[in-house]
């Protein structure tokens, strides 16, 4: 899905021409919010229509929780290391 990265990079490039245009940023953020609403609604729809997912929701939730705890624990320990090495004395 190279299209995702291409559109994203194209967007950043286009955005550079609208630097500090508060109005453009405002409308982009509105657009982003409504496309997220739409996408999450569609995602919900496809999940609601999928009995395999609805029946396994609790076990999917457990997987999600375990992955989060692993990821957050790792990032907390890494942040502690960075804090001690580079930031504590200078902030």
């Amino acid at each position, binding site marked *: 899905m190279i299209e995702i990265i291409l559109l994203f990079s194209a967007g950043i490039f286009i955005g550079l021409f609208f630097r500090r245009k508060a109005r453009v940023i405002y409308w982009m953020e509105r657009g982003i919010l409504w496309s*997220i609403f739409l996408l999450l609604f569609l995602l919900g*729809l496809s999940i*609601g229509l999928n009995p395999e*997912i609805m029946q396994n929701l609790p076990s999917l939730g457990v997987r999600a929780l375990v992955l989060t705890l692993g990821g957050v624990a790792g*990032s907390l320990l890494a*942040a502690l290391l960075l804090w001690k090495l580079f930031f504590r004395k200078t902030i």
Partner: protein
Amino acid sequence: MRQSLYILIFFAAGVILGMTGLLPEPITRTDYTKYALYLLMLLVGISIGADNKAFLVLKSYGMRLFLVPLVTITGTFAGVIPVSLLLEHISIREGLAVGAGFGYYSLSSIIITELHSEVLGVVALLSNVIREILTLILAPLMAMVFGKLAPVAAGGATSMDTTLPVIARASGKQFAIIALFHGIVLTILVPVLVTFILTAFGS
């Protein structure tokens, strides 16, 4: 915070409507998601390009700032790999893709659904919502035990918006700047990393 609530309401409305099976077939069968996702990627890109906050922050703090998102990424991946091995139904690639959402649950779950499967998309949605909620609730404790950069790292991509206020309160106002920069960098990297993890080296 209120926006996250609206997003989840739209999601829940979709789930409920889907379960009732009231929708006519053509609506449910067409793949609108892909085009809406393309639009979203373009808009997110433009808003990042047009916003020069990141450049300004970088000017005042220097390259050291890049260490913070880098540490969040390596720490998250280092933590996700062992738990993926532990989980029967999650491969390391899948675990990394979910972890690479860094709390940006809307975008990561949509991309993962498109590129991989609805099942993993749901896991990504739940996992990244939990990451945001954990940070919102535990930021003060994280700052106390793991140092003042900890809530920033835990917040991931959300450290630029939803979790920014609690980070500033838990770690101090000067960390709001770091959190903002950190969140912007991770927001840019979420689509790139998720796509790369799911498609690189053959799947």
